């Protein structure tokens, strides 16, 4: 039951992401063509708020609402896989016109054709897990 709050947080995130138009195919294609500042403004200001929040949490040595220490560990730096994986993902993001969160939003919106990239993303994940050891990281 305690976990149900995550549904609420997900709904909040999903809704503001919709309002940011990051779910719009047109906005993503526009962004990659550098035809508008809109998406860069969204990403930039989202990161600014996130980074300032993290800074405050660090400075004040804040704990969670239940007085547990907050884990601010970064993901491990893996230059090769961060870059190569990033390029492959960026390719998919641009040609589908949606990154993972918007894929799920489109499903909720009733654009069921989005099940095609969702199912194939599961296949891609499966392939990665299967050949992971053979890839440079």
């Amino acid at each position, binding site marked *: 039951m305690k976990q149900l*709050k*995550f549904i609420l947080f*997900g*709904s*909040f*995130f*999903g809704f*503001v992401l919709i*309002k*940011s*138009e990051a779910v719009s*195919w*047109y906005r993503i*294609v*526009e962004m*990659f*063509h550098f*035809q*508008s500042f809109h998406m860069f403004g*969204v990403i930039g*200001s*989202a990161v600014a708020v*996130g*980074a300032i*929040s993290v800074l405050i949490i660090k400075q004040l040595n804040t704990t*969670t*609402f239940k007085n547990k220490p907050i*884990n601010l560990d*970064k993901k491990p*730096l893996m230059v090769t896989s*961060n*870059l*190569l994986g*990033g390029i492959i*993902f*960026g390719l*998919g*993001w641009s*040609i589908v*016109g949606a*990154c*993972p*969160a918007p894929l*799920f*939003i489109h*499903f*909720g*919106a009733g*654009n069921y054709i989005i099940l*095609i*990239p*969702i*199912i*194939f993303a*599961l296949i*891609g*994940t499966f392939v990665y*897990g*299967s050949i*992971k050891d053979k890839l440079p990281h």
Partner: protein
Amino acid sequence: MDTILYILKEPWPWYVSGPLVGLIVPILLLSSNKQFGVSSVFRHVCTATKLSKKSYFQYDLKKEYWSLLFVLGIVIAGVFAFHLIEVLPGELSKDAQVYYQSKNIEFTGYFPIGLYRWDTLFSVFGLVLAAGGVFIGFGTRYANGCTSGHAITGLSLLSLGSLIAVIGFFIGGLIGTFLILDNIL
């Protein structure tokens, strides 16, 4: 009530919606000590199917339920915004409008329904959706995160790996846009 509905429905400028998107980072950190990312749910779903014996898909799923619930919330937001509120998108830039006109693509709503439809599935667009899906699933796991995990959470934590990944996202995005999308639209 009408005012609230109007505010929820009308487009918001980036300097309102962007900061609200960023708020999810402290919300999850302070309430639950979680760093959020969406693409990892693809891995959890693969793990849940128990189809693979690979070590990559062997771990305790109970600790990951929260991210599945989070994604369920994202889907609910889609239902709420598009079926109840019927949100309206903002106006695209003039350059973008000229581009879509030149490609004969109607630019209303959020998704080009004229292009991405079931009856074009066995055409080049169907291939794009399928291949793009594979790239999204494979690439996010290889990079260890997507736009939410690397661009929002990772950059907020000033992670160098996330910065490299985000640079990768844009290299890949430009290749996909200028070499693929521009030629097939």
